């Protein structure tokens, strides 16, 4: 599946791979969407097929962006959840249970 970045009113929706291979493209794309988010960056990762440490670093980077006070993953695929759970970062995804049923 090809990489697709969809801008949302206060965040972004990603489709495809969120890995080291797409990271270079994703960084500027994610940064572009930060000004409009009003501090609370909402990220929809339902369409993310692959997710690795590079993808996770992108989320951590977003968290540190001066315009972003909070990163919230509104929905995520199983690939994302399992990686975040391994790293004990499930709290980025809220609410956890809702997402699990969604995926």
């Amino acid at each position, binding site marked *: 599946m090809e990489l697709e970045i969809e801008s949302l009113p206060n965040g972004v929706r990603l489709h495809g791979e969120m890995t080291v291979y797409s990271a270079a493209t994703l960084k500027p794309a994610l940064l572009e969407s930060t000004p409009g988010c009003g501090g609370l960056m909402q990220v929809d990762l339902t369409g993310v097929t692959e997710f*690795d440490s590079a993808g996770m670093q992108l989320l951590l980077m977003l968290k540190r962006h001066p315009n972003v006070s909070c990163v919230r993953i509104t929905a995520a695929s199983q690939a994302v959840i399992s990686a975040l759970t391994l*790293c004990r970062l499930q709290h980025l995804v*809220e609410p956890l249970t809702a997402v699990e049923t969604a995926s």
Partner: protein
Amino acid sequence: VTVDEALPTFIAEAAELLREMELVLLECTDVTPDADNVNRLFRCAHTIKGSSGLFGLDAIVAFVHNVEAVLDRVRLGQASLDSKLIGVLLKCKDHIESLVAGVAAGEPDPAPTLRAQGELLLQALGGDAHGLTGAPQPTALPVNSTAAAQQCWHISVRFGRDVLVAGMDPIGFLRYLGSFGSITELVLIDDALPGVAEFEPEKCYIGFEIAFTTDAPRERIEGTFDFVRDDCRLQIVAPASAVTAYFEALRANGLDDVRCVEVLRKLGSLSEAQLELGLRPAETQPVRAATTPVSVGHPIAVGLPGNVAQPGSVSPPKADSRSVRVDAAKLDSLITHIGELITAAATANLVAKRSGNRELEECTASVSALIEQVREGSLQLRMVKIGATFNRFRRVVHDLSAELGKEIELLVSGEDTELDKTVVERITDPLTHLVRNAIDHGIEAAETRTQRGKPAAGTIKLNAFHESGTIVIEVSDDGGGLKRDRILTKAIERGLVAPNAALSEAEIFNLVFEPGFSTAEVVTNLSGRGVGMDVVKRNITALRGDVSIRSAEGAGTTVTVRLPLTLAIINGFQVGVGQSIFVLPLESIEECVEFSATPGHDFTSLRGEVLPFVRLQSLFGTGSPSASRQSIVVVRNAGQRAGLVVDSLLGEFQTVIKPLGKIFQKLDCVSGSSILGTGEVALILDVPALVAQTVQRARASAPAEASVPLAVLS
């Protein structure tokens, strides 16, 4: 430190962890549990298991292990933390508490009944997990405590910048570790992550601190990281290593002491006692160790702004890691001695003044100032936050609302308000009674609430704040409120008030504090045990406190409890009346003004407002009025003001409160006594009682003279 010496620390620590566990569980009933809550629960269980293992408390280890296993499944999303499981876990927590209590009592082997109870709980736990997962569930694992404790390795790893480009995924290593053991806890270390501008998306900045349980040998763990051997920094700490080994490994991987403690606490690798032990050698070196972020020359951390530029990531050590446990009895004896010291110093002061020796006077003055500081400081030692007491009520509310089938939410505010430990201990029972009462009689059944247009879930609020030297605690509910007419009818029936008495609303509500007064139609199992509001009032009065009630029918009730901040020593203001000296708590005094009175009446005009006053002379019958000018001391309590007419103002003195003897306890308007520097006894006035009495008397005489106060005003 021998095992026996460390045992009390274990018991205290377990008690704290269990309290936290209870708190988190109850939080989970209010909101959907998030990962953080589950992790906290898991960590509590894990730490209790670990430290009981150290003491060879097999019974506890075996039980907690099962609890931990269930929590682990919850964490992995294989089981959900629903209200049923929370209920069972709460009971498990109680059970662990009983087990620990057994250890504290010197009987580490639980009694057969306790054992049976534990097995029942384990079945409930196991059954629950079955129902939820459908997965085969190993039945109660017999655990060898030492083995369980020894299996837990600590892995600290930082990956090189280029591992991602080389096709390695750090998360992949975690997955691989999972194939021959289990990651009990993990902390992601992202301190090296730079700011947005410097962040290169294809470089790797992260590392992990892992608590890893396995029976595999060290080689196997090391082998996991073979592919990145040359491109990572790996530290592996064997199970049950010396405390210093943990700290050395973490420091080697670039964590300062503060972060070390934070990480190790989170992982549950070390107990609090051990954490403190690990910090000790660092403290003998200068503090620099804790503030230098990373030693220079690290292959990874060099020159990365991320290490210094994130103040948020380095949190200060929690206060509790720097605290010392002190026996409460020692504190009490310290306070008693300080009390004696104050009296002795007052005598010294007096003698110095009489001697007319300037130098001596100066000396005693500075000694007194120091004593005052010592007094402040030592009283502060006994101050505790009321939050812990409030949190206890979460459990009460949870259990009772389940028992009564009412949905009730508990809102708590002002948890940080501090008050004396002895007061806290003695206020818990009356407060519990008030909360039970609110749940049982206050909050209506859900149908009634819906009919009245209120949300089906009732709310109980606990609030605390400081007000003029007292602490105010409010227990309010949004329930049915008190039925004014029914209270009045009942009071007349019982002969508590005359049928034609004109009572204010507040006075009617306060009738519920009369002995044997109950308006509930149905005596329930909860609060109909014959212990009524009168006992609450008696307990609070015994603490020199005061309780009042406000209510609006259909909208709710608020019970307000006022308590003195401390029971031992106060800042007192001495006044002379005739030959006697009385003491007023300084905090209750608003101001002192020259005596003036509306001729023939017991009130005066204070800047245009009516101020009722009482002549202490006639109240206490202390002989003929002195010829000198009299003063009015304006005191305030519970929003009301009153004046006290005195002959002389003697000024501020520290006052050690001595209780009154039994025969004097019924005395109105006197709350205690104190010994003056001269050896004389001064009575401490009960300001709330005085104010109430004065205001009441003024009101009683007001109807006849209604026009007079107005005349004063104009």
